[in-house]
């Protein structure tokens, strides 16, 4: 099934810093909910393993993403796929745009377009959108915390 989601979040750091941290493996590992490992294969390719727990469901996803349409420090597209074994899969991408926000902060806007398939889509169809939003919110809360910890 298709999943589309857009949102905006204001982060407590300037644009150059946000851009740098979005591309930093350690920051991403600390931000992705349930992330167990994350390696940069190149400047534009990463792979990660994350354990996603929602209610009774607990599934481990192995993902690989590429960064394209890179316009530093303004925007990029992150796309790829995650394989959850028996739980199913997700593939798609997000367009991420940064802009300056008052008070030295940065506004990050994202548009996600993805396909979720397999058991989680079949059995959890009613929860996919709210789960995606919950995971996105958790990611940005963790990311903002990582940014503040540094300053």
């Amino acid at each position, binding site marked *: 099934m298709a999943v589309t989601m857009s949102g905006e979040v204001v982060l407590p750091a300037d644009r150059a810093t946000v851009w740098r941290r979005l591309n930093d493996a350690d920051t991403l590992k600390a931000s992705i909910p349930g992330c167990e490992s994350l390696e940069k294969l190149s400047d534009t390719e990463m792979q990660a393993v994350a354990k996603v727990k929602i209610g*009774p469901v607990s*599934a481990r996803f192995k993902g690989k993403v590429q960064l394209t349409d890179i316009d530093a420090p303004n925007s990029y597209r992150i796309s790829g796929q995650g394989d959850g074994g028996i739980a199913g899969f997700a593939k798609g991408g997000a367009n991420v745009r940064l802009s300056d926000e008052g008070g030295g902060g940065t506004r990050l806007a994202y548009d996600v377009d993805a396909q979720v398939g397999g058991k989680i889509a079949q059995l959890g169809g009613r929860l996919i959108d709210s*789960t995606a939003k*919950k995971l996105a919110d958790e990611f940005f809360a963790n990311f903002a915390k990582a940014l503040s910890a540094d300053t």
Partner: protein
Amino acid sequence: MYAFQYHRPETVADAAGLLAANKEAKLLAGGHTLIPTMKQRLANPPAIVDLSRVAELKGIDKRGSALVIGAMATHDEVAGSAAVRAAIPGLCELAAAIGDPHVRNRGTIGGSVANNDPAADYPAAVLALGATIATNKREIKADDFFKGLFSTALGDGEIITRISFPIPGKFAYAKFANPASRYALVGVAVAQSGREARVAVTGAGSNGVFRHKAAEAALAANWSAQALANLATPASDMMSDIHADAEYRAHLVGVLARRAVAKAG
């Protein structure tokens, strides 16, 4: 289902000990959420702690001005309980309309509340009635308990023992059930105690059960379905899925809130 260790303790203390010894162990209450998930291999706990023989968790009775329901009371037991009917009859009706007979024979109030499925019925009643959730470690007020999608204030190894409902002046629950699963597409619970009105909505919010402040204010001033005639619910906070979109859910919240108030009397 993958292999797992099965434990069936007879006391809460033993159950807590088993959880402490194995951080990945899961509690088994009615099993209608956990077992199907395990059968699909979407959850693989190494150990299950079955609470069905823990006598301390059963029982329904009135204690002073509160109705106290044991965590392992099944939906069928609550629906048929003379004590519940005498104190909060709307709760009997809510329990009688959960899922289907298979679910009602096994499902428990403790399991439902601990799981906090965003479409479950009990969380709306617990929140609207301002109940207190007692665990093996402390007591948690309903307003502090529900934290979002499948999220509660329960810590690791914490076990719900009973839920205490202050007996209200009026209470009713109205839901628009998904015709297949009987989950609440939208469910609204309303309670009145003295001049205070509490309204809790399940099934609709993108972040789980929530209190509808605008509805509460309108009903505190005038307890009637008319008071909610133009009740607005922001569609942006509503869940959209294959069953209903956000705007429809927002609309249903108003319809069901009015029906619940009419039912409550």
